[in-house]
C-alpha cells in the first residue's frame, strides 16, 4: 500500500510541475496542441512515445507540423518480487523528431537482501532517446495502406556496472536501434504497431548489455489497440528480448492495457503486465502510468 502512496505523491508532484511547465511552455515555445486525442501514444518504459512496453512510430506530444510539444510521465510496475519505476520527459519537434530522457529504477526489494545486496537495493538506468519519422501519417493518411514509419535509438547507461558485469554482462552502457511502423485503421478504430529492435540489453539494460555473446539480437515488439471512444483505448502488447545471460533466464514481456485521456494534457494508463522471468521467477503485476503533456 505504501508503494501506492509513493506513486501518488510522485504523480501529484508531476502534475503540479507539468501545469507550471505547460504555462511557461505556452508563452516561450511555439507550443502546440495540433494533434488529435491519444494519437501521440503514451510514454513507454524507456521514455519514448508508444505503448507501455514498446516505442511507436508516432512522435510524442500534441504538436503538429509547425509546432513543438512535449510531455512528462511517471510509471510504476509492481511485480511479484520487484518494483520498477520509470519517469522522464520528451519533446516532439514539428511531428518529425522526438527527443527523450528517462530514468528506470529497478528496486530488488527482498530479493536484494537474499542476494546480500541489501533489501531494496536499486539498479538505475538512464536512457536518452531519439526518434525520427521517415514517412507516412498514421492517423491522417487513411487512404494509404502503408503505416507511419520511424527509426529510433535509445542510448542507455546502467549505474551498477560492477554488479551487471559480475552477473556476466559485457558492458553497462549501450545503444538499442529500432524501426517502428504504426497505423491507425480509423474506420475500424484499430491501431497496429510493429517494432523491430537491435539490442544487446538484458532486461531492458537493467542487467547490462551482452552476455553469452556480444552481438545485437533482433527482437520483435508489437502492439494492438482498440479505440472505445475518443478518450478511452484498450490494447495489448508483446516485447521479445534476448536471453543472453547465463545466470538467469529471460523471456518475453506482455501486457494488456487501458489508456484514458480525460483531457488533452493528461493520460492515465493501467495495465496488467507479465514481464516474463526476471532473475528469480516470472514477474507479473500492475502497471500504472501518468502522462502530462503540453
Amino acid at each position, binding site marked *: 500500500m505504501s508503494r501506492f502512496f509513493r506513486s501518488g505523491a510522485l504523480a501529484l508532484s508531476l502534475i503540479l510541475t507539468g501545469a507550471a511547465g505547460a504555462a511557461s511552455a505556452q508563452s516561450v515555445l511555439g507550443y*502546440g*496542441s*495540433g*494533434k*488529435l*486525442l491519444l494519437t501521440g501514444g503514451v510514454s513507454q518504459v524507456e521514455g519514448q512515445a508508444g505503448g507501455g512496453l514498446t516505442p511507436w512510430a508516432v512522435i510524442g506530444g500534441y504538436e*503538429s*507540423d*509547425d*509546432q513543438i510539444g512535449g510531455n512528462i510521465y511517471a510509471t510504476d510496475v509492481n511485480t511479484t518480487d520487484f518494483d520498477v519505476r520509470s519517469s522522464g520527459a520528451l519533446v516532439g519537434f514539428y*511531428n518529425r523528431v522526438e527527443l527523450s530522457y528517462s530514468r528506470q529504477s529497478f528496486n530488488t526489494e527482498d530479493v536484494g537482501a537474499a542476494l546480500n545486496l541489501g533489501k531494496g537495493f536499486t539498479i538505475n538506468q538512464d536512457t536518452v532517446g531519439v526518434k525520427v519519422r521517415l514517412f507516412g501519417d498514421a*492517423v*491522417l*493518411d*487513411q*487512404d*494509404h*495502406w*502503408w*503505416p507511419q514509419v520511424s527509426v529510433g535509438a535509445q542510448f542507455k547507461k546502467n549505474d551498477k556496472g560492477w554488479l551487471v558485469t559480475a552477473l556476466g554482462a559485457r558492458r553497462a552502457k549501450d545503444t538499442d536501434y529500432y524501426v517502428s*511502423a504504426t*497505423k491507425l*485503421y*480509423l*474506420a*475500424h*478504430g*484499430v491501431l*497496429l504497431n*510493429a517494432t*523491430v529492435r537491435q539490442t544487446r540489453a538484458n532486461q531492458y539494460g537493467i542487467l547490462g548489455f551482452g552476455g553469452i555473446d556480444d552481438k545485437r539480437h*533482433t527482437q*520483435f515488439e508489437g502492439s494492438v489497440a482498440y*479505440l*472505445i*471512444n*475518443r478518450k478511452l483505448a484498450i490494447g495489448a502488447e508483446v516485447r521479445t528480448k534476448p536471453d543472453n545471460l547465463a545466470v538467469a533466464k529471460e523471456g518475453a514481456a506482455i501486457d494488456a492495457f487501458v489508456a484514458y485521456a480525460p483531457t488533452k494534457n493528461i493520460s492515465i494508463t493501467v495495465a496488467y503486465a507479465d514481464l516474463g522471468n526476471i532473475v528469480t521467477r516470472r514477474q507479473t503485476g500492475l502497471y500504472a502510468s501518468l502522462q502530462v503533456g503540453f
Partner: protein
Amino acid sequence: MNFVLIPAFALLAMTAPVHAQTSAATAPVISDGKLFAEFGGREGLVRIVDDLFVYVDADTRINTFFDPTKRDHTKAMLVEQFCQVLGGGCTYSGKDMALAHKDLGIQTRDFNALVEDLQKAMDNNKVPFSAQNRLLAALAPQHRDMTPAH
C-alpha cells in the same frame, strides 16, 4: 520480420469499407445502407453541421478561416459532401477541395482542430463512435488538399 507485418497492414486496409479512389473534389462514397441513418439522414447532418459551426465560431484556433457572409453556403456544401460520403445519395456541387482552400494558409493543426469540433458536434447528435470514425476516415485524406504546404 517486416515481410510478415506488411501483409497484415495491407489486409486490414483492404477490408476497409471505402472503395472509391479519393479525388481532389470529394472523398470516397461509403456503400453501406445503415451508416447514413446513423447520422440521422440528411436532417441529422444539417443539425450536426449547425452544431459544428457553434463550436467553430467559439474556436479561436480556426474561426478566422470561415467567412461569415458565406456561412449558409459553407454549411450547405458540408452537408452535401458528408451526405455523399455517407451514401445518402447526394452529389457534392461545390468547388474542388484543393481550390476552395488554396491560399488560406491552413496547417495540419487547423485541420485537426476542425476534426475535433466535428467530433463534438457528432457526439452532441448521438452519432455512434464507430460511425463517426468511418466518416472521419473517409475525410482525413483531404488534409493533403487543404494544407498544400505539406
